[in-house]
């Protein structure tokens, strides 16, 4: 199974998201094709209600600890409750361009 599919399945199981985008942005970085190294996630779920952004990100980082220890170097996280998602017009900011730091080093 691809890493993207694995991430998708883990988050669907754990967070019951109303919306989930797992976007592989590896091609924007200095990595070989198929590296599955840089992802952006958009997660809209009720479970984020009343939780700080740090708590939400920690939750996802914890669920994906195995992937973060493996091929995944960068994880852009956009976590919203359904109300927040509606309030921001269902828009997600673009990820920043690569600056080359993962070429020799790996890991954001």
């Amino acid at each position, binding site marked *: 199974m691809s890493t993207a599919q694995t991430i998708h399945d883990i988050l669907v199981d754990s967070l019951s998201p109303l919306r989930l985008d797992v976007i592989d942005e590896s091609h924007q970085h200095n990595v070989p094709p198929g590296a599955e190294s840089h992802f952006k996630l958009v997660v809209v779920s009720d479970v984020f209600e009343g939780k700080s952004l740090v708590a939400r990100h920690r939750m996802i980082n914890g669920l994906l600890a195995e992937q973060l220890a493996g091929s995944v170097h960068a994880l852009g996280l956009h976590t919203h409750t359904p109300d927040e998602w509606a309030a921001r017009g269902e828009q997600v900011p673009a990820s920043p361009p690569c600056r080359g730091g993962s070429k020799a*080093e790996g890991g954001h």
Partner: protein
Amino acid sequence: MSEQDDVAARIKQQIADNPVILYMKGTPQMPMCGFSMRTVEVLKQCEQEFAFVNIIADPSIRETLPKVSDWPTFPQLYIEGELVGGCDITMELAESGELKKMIDAAASKAA
């Protein structure tokens, strides 16, 4: 004390000593990663001084900080001793105007 304890103690001291400190890839003048670059940009817009540590130049901190902070990625922004988050959270706080308030408050306490 093991070497890792030693590094952890050094990190905690840095975070305690600096009201605003960013652990990043590269330097504010020359970020080595888009996420670090973007975080530096919004910090600069707050027009207060901030400390930084280039984790590419200090691999021991790069290895130890994620364990200390329970946060696996860089950059990591700390204000008044607390982890604020990485690039995405910092951007969201900057958008809402909250970041400048937090940084101004930290700077005025430190002054």
